[in-house]
C-alpha cells in the first residue's frame, strides 16, 4: 500500500563519491526510458546538492501537498517524467540546506510511475532510504563511478554497503570515461582509465 504501489520498478542510483554524475546519469536514464515509451518518476533525495530540477529545466517550480502526499512536478507536457526533489523545497538558489537527522525521512513519494530513479547523496550512506524502500522490492542499485582510483576507492565502500544491507547491484557505470577533443578528435583519459571495469570485476557485479 502507499504511494509507491503504482511504481513497477525502483532503481537507486548510488555512488559513495561526490560529483561522479549520479544526477546527470539519472536524468539521461529518465529521458532514455521516456523515449522508450516508459513513464518515469525521479526522486532526487540529494539533500545537500539537489541538481536534477535544473537539469530538467524545472528549477524554481512550486510543489504542494495534497491528501495523498507531495505532488511531483511533471517535466514535460506528455507527463511521462515526474520529478520530486528536495530542491523544490528550497526557496532561493543560494539557500543552504542543513537537515538534522530525523528530518531526512521526509514524505517524498514519486506517485504513479513505471520506473523510479533515486539520485542518492554521495557522501551519506542512507540507511533510511534503503529501509524506507525495502518493502517495495527495489530492482537494485546502479552504482556510478569515474575511472580514477581515488573515486573507485570510495565507491567500493558503497558496494560493500549494498551487500551489507541486502541491496542488489544492477551494475557499475563508469562516467567521464575519456574526453574526445572537439578540435582534433584525440581521446584523452582525463580521469585515468579502467577503474570502473576493475571495480565491477572485484565486486562481482555487472559492468554496464
Amino acid at each position: 500500500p502507499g504511494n509507491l504501489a503504482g511504481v513497477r520498478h525502483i532503481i537507486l542510483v548510488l555512488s559513495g563519491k561526490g560529483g561522479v554524475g549520479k544526477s546527470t546519469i539519472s536524468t539521461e536514464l529518465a529521458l532514455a526510458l521516456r523515449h522508450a515509451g516508459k513513464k518515469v518518476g525521479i526522486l532526487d533525495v540529494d539533500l545537500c546538492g539537489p541538481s536534477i530540477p535544473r537539469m530538467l529545466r524545472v528549477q524554481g517550480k512550486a510543489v504542494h501537498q495534497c491528501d495523498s502526499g507531495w505532488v511531483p512536478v511533471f517535466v514535460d507536457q506528455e507527463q511521462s517524467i515526474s520529478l520530486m526533489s528536495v530542491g523544490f523545497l528550497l526557496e532561493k538558489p543560494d539557500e543552504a540546506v542543513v537537515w538534522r537527522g530525523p528530518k531526512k525521512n521526509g514524505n517524498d513519494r514519486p506517485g504513479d510511475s513505471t520506473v523510479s530513479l533515486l539520485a542518492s547523496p554521495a557522501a551519506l550512506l542512507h540507511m533510511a532510504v534503503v529501509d524506507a524502500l525495502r518493502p517495495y522490492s527495489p530492482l537494485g542499485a546502479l552504482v556510478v563511478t569515474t575511472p580514477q582510483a581515488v573515486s573507485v576507492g570510495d565507491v567500493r565502500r558503497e558496494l560493500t554497503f549494498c551487500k551489507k544491507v541486502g541491496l542488489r547491484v544492477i551494475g557499475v557505470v563508469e562516467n567521464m570515461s575519456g574526453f574526445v577533443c572537439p578540435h582534433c578528435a584525440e581521446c584523452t583519459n582525463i580521469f585515468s582509465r579502467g577503474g570502473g571495469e576493475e571495480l565491477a570485476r572485484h565486486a562481482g557485479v555487472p559492468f554496464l
Partner: protein
Amino acid sequence: MKTVKHKILVLSGKGGVGKSTFSAHLAHGLAEDENTQVALLDIDICGPSIPKIMGLEGEQVHQSGSGWSPVFLEDNLGVMSVGFLLSSPDDAVIWRGPKKNGMIKQFLRDVDWGEVDYLIEVSLQDVRKEINFCHKVKLPIIGVVENMSGFTCPKCQKESQIFLPTTGGAEVMCQDLKVPLLGKVPLDPRIGKSCDKGESFFAEAPDSPATLAYRSIIQRIQESCSLRQPKGENLVGS
C-alpha cells in the same frame, strides 16, 4: 587547536569538485618550505580520500598520552584521516548521526598536532557549504578556487571547456557575492594520475599550467593568512 596559527577550511557546496585534491596539493605546496609546519585533517567520514592522495594508504595511527598522533608524510607535514582507522579498502563506514558527530568532535579535539603554522581541514560537504552561510556565521572567506577550469588537448593544444561556465562560473559568482577569486585550475590528466599514485602533482608536472595556477593560488592564500589573525576559510568552488 591552541598551537595552530592558521586554520584553513576547504569547503564546497558540491561533491566531486576537488576539495581533497586541492587540499592535498595546498598541503604539499605549503610544506615545500621546511620551516613551515603543515597539518592536513580529513574529516570526510564516509569518503576519506586523503590517505590515498597523499600516498599514505594502509598507514596506522596511534594514540599516545597526548592524543591521536597524525601520520607524518614529511617532518613538517602531518596528516590525519578517518581513513586510517579503516582496516580494509572495502570497509564501509556506516555512521548514524550522533555517532558521526561524536567521531568528528573526537578527531578535532584529540589529535596531537604539535606546533602548526597551517592546519588544512577538508570539510564535510553537508554542513558549512555556502558563502552565505560563511557570511551568516562570520567566517572570513579567503576566496574561491575554480577547479577543472578548461582543458588543453595534449595533441592539438587547443582549449576546450568541458564543464561549461554557463552561468559565468566562479568569476560571476565571486563578483555577485563580493569574494575574491583566487584562481582557476585547469584539468590535467596527470593530476588524477598523481592522486591515484599518492604523489605530488607538482613533482610530476612542474611545468603544467595547472601547477602554475596552484602556485599562484597558494601564494595568495599565504598572503591572505599573513594579513589576518588565525582562522580563515577557503571556499573551493567549481
